[in-house]
């Protein structure tokens, strides 16, 4: 395996260098920061008002207060987590800086950890203000979920990183020709992970696919909490176990794709 090497000690100093590089980039550009906030805000407002409208005409939604807003906020953790990871990676391709990084002592694991940290930074910039707006507009306090929120967040962010790592491998191997994957791959999860409806709505055969995806357990767990007022640790443990498998598979795929990129000579020329 190309990435495994003698003397491959991990350095948090190099991870910090990369985080600093992305932080400099982010703070140098207000459109980049605005972009992190405005779309989650639009989504939250749209689904929030829809929920208000429906709850005025349905007893179920009166009892299940916040389920739509909760869904949209948790979906944004999943979606924005992956996007934050992938956009930081894409910035290196846009800047034609990948060759510099690949030629530096930066290890792949350090690079990936820096991208994960930046995904949390970007997510925080977007989600914290939006969660506060949800309280102001709809009285929905995501933070009141407490430990359950921590479990939901941990599982969703792990999935988003696994997908981000796989996409980064595709980008290394195929250049910017694979860019659209970075923007759209998570939408495959939207219907299958049952963000806005229970798994039981799906046809029987499709439910097997749904239960193979860790976020499905999170969204089911969220509905159990908001509708039935029951926290389901069993769902979180199953999601975590699946996430471990998904993360390991994505990391392995990344290393194989990196190896293939070296064989194909695509690390220096990463255009389409």
């Amino acid at each position: 395996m190309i990435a495994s090497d003698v003397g491959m000690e991990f350095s948090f100093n190099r991870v910090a260098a990369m985080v600093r590089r992305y932080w400099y980039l982010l703070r140098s550009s207000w459109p980049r920061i605005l972009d992190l906030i405005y779309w989650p805000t639009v989504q939250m407002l749209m689904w929030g008002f829809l929920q208000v409208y429906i709850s005025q005409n349905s007893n179920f939604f009166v009892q299940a207060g916040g389920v739509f807003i909760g869904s949209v906020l948790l979906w944004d953790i999943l979606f924005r987590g992956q996007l934050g990871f992938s956009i930081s990676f894409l910035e290196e391709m846009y800047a034609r800086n990948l060759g510099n990084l690949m030629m530096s002592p930066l290890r792949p694991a350090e690079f990936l950890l820096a991208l994960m940290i930046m995904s949390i930074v970007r997510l925080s910039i977007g989600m914290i203000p939006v969660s506060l707006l949800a309280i102001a507009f709809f009285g929905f306090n995501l933070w009141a979920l407490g430990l359950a929120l921590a479990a939901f967040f941990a599982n969703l962010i792990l999935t988003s990183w696994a997908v981000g790592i796989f996409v980064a491998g595709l980008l290394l191997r195929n250049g910017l020709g694979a860019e659209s994957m970075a923007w759209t791959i998570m939408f495959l999860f939207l219907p299958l992970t049952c963000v806005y409806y229970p798994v039981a709505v799906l046809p029987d055969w499709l439910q097997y696919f749904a239960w193979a995806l860790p976020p499905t357990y999170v969204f089911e767990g969220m509905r159990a909490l908001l509708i039935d007022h029951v926290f389901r640790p069993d769902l979180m443990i199953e999601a975590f176990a699946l996430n471990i498998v998904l993360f390991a598979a994505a990391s392995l795929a990344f290393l194989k794709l990196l190896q293939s990129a070296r064989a194909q000579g695509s690390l220096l020329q990463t255009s389409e």
Partner: protein
Amino acid sequence: MFPPMDAQNASPIAVDRLVKRYKGVAAVDGISFRLTPGSVTGLLGGNGAGKTTTIAMIMGLVTPTSGGVTVLGAEMPRQRYRVLHRMNFESPYVDVPMRLTVRQNLSVFAQLYAVADIDERIDRLAADLDLTEFLDRPTGKLSAGQKTRVSLAKALLNKPEVLLLDEPTASLDPDTADWVRSRLERYRAEESATILLASHNMAEVERLCERVIIMKKGRIEDDDKPDLLLSRYGRETLEEVFLDVARGRRQSEAAQ
């Protein structure tokens, strides 16, 4: 003339029967050479001759199809992390991030290369490369010549023992290009670095290099000191030698 095979481990860069094929087409076709410590070697060749692929394999960015490369005793790309902190490069195929200021870029790369006393090193390089007044400007706002100097500063940050340069003065005006060459000469003299330089600029190669390797269609067509190449081909300049090689004229024909 050049070190024997058993000196491979002592050679900063040793290339042994190196082959790279893309979909069956040989980009590099069985080349071998070894560089002596502290030397400056020019890698010449037309477009598609295999220079950039050769340099990419030396850097460990491309895996050879067969043959091998060792840099400072480490087999590339397998053992590259043993030596990446002791080498660096500059290439027209890569840029430093344009939105970051020069100082931010250099400090990030200095941290990646574990440079000791980063601020002092940046100030020293900025003074050497005439970048002090631009340190706090976004790199993207600089002229082409200034950006090249920033790339050179990045390449020299870790005081590399092995420096790989791919067209280091491409797209620069003659004055700036001359200025860059003088800085490279000074760096080599101060640090005894081994430099491999791919270039189309024959004047640059004549000035900087004590050895010239000429590639064509992935193979080494000739390999010698510049003055010996000139006398063998009976030419006044390396450009004429380059044209003889590029157009397939043999040494005996060229000398007539």
